[in-house]
């Protein structure tokens, strides 16, 4: 299921159950803003496109991205910042697993 979906593909059901996600994810893609579009977001800043282990993808940010660097495919873990916003933190990997 992708997050834009509102109707179940199998039976057209519109009732949604919430299920806890594992919080495990990988970095699907990212961009780094260099041009100032909005005063609320001072450049440079990165935006992450994250793929959850469960399948859906969503936009978020990777904590300490500037320090740790971003690599597509890197392992991430879901977290929440001080304002309650969903963010992701890099997970150290000794060996790459899919």
């Amino acid at each position, binding site marked *: 299921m*992708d*997050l*834009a*979906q509102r109707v179940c593909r199998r039976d057209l059901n519109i009732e949604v159950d919430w299920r806890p996600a594992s919080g495990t994810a990988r970095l*699907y*893609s*990212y*961009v*780094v*803003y*260099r*041009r100032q*579009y*909005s005063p*609320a*977001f001072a450049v440079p*800043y990165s*935006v*992450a*496109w994250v793929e959850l282990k469960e399948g859906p*993808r*969503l*936009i*978020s*940010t990777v904590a300490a991205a500037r320090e740790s660097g971003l690599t*597509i*495919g890197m392992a991430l873990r879901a977290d929440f910042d001080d304002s309650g*916003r969903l963010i992701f933190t890099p997970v150290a990997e000794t060996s790459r697993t899919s």
Partner: protein
Amino acid sequence: MPNQALSAITGLGFSRLSREPIGSPRSLALSAMRAAVIDSGLGLSEIDGLLLNQSAQISGDAVPLKLRQDLGLGDIRLHASIDSKGASVIQMLQMATLAIRHGMANAVLCVFSDTPVGSDSNSGASYVNASALTGIEGWDQQYGLIGAVANYAMAAQRYMSHYGSDERHLGAYAISCRNWALHNPMAQQREPLSFEQYLASRFIVEPFRILDCALPINGAAAFIVTDAVRARTGVRPPVYIHGMGQCHGSTDQWAHDREEITAGARSASASLQMAGIAPAAVTCCQIYDPFSICAFVALEDFGLCKKGEAPDFVLDGQTGPGGTMPVSTGGGHLSGYYLQGMTPIAEAIIQARGDGGERQVSANDVILVNGSGGLFEHHATVVLSPRRSLA
């Protein structure tokens, strides 16, 4: 009958194009419509269809149905606004063709008009609508994902990471387009561009530099579609439509690291099949290319390059003047002018007619033209030719 034309384009017109405010979208649309009718040699009373398209950057009624009255058309038999974002203009051509083939109309005028550049904003601010990659209203904005550039930059980053392409390839496409634009009197960017200059240009949203992004422009363009037989007696050389296709899918289909067939590939394939030809028959491409990544994705969708191989094809110079596959021969969106779906179709018409002047492509026999909307979600493709039969 396979290999026979479905319809023909018999008129093409433009308003003034400018990066300064030059009038309302409605007035620019009227200017282009009038120019197309004059170009076609048709009388106003012969125009019995009107299709309209505008961008999302201007208010919803900026290019209104009432343009019918503005032009002085009488009762017409086909009239609508069409919107599928970047695929809209090709869709207008397709809808016109379908109507003509069923006898619902004889001559359909199709127009696109846009005024994204205001007097008090710089052009980069023109496309800063909040994006929606996650699919949840308001989600993306909380992380500062703003503007169309970032969406395509996301796609480019992943594509380049997976296939090992880099700024040399992006720059090569920008230069390919610029090399065509040098010979296009209508092009907005006509200074030679070197790779050093490309590298030195400023980043907008990595991996895109300003030269990887189309510059917004105010203007309008229009064309007229008629029956293929009738087109033979027109005043301009007809440009025949031989194949049409569409496909619309989810935004992640540009992620060519999967082996599935993308919506863009399905759209192109459908148009080639309708035309009765294989990709190898294509001699020229006019690509919807507001960002350099668009050309790589399109060439692979068209079946002209294997997945991941388009960047080297471009780096090798194959898409520029003198190359084996001329692409976006007016400079495209990057160096020509950004009138969304009108840019590639107008250049296809010009090339097919033999009006390309210094940039005329000798291999104008089979021109594949696409329109692409959203983030590679909406696709419409047509096959054009100066020949009435491709057999």
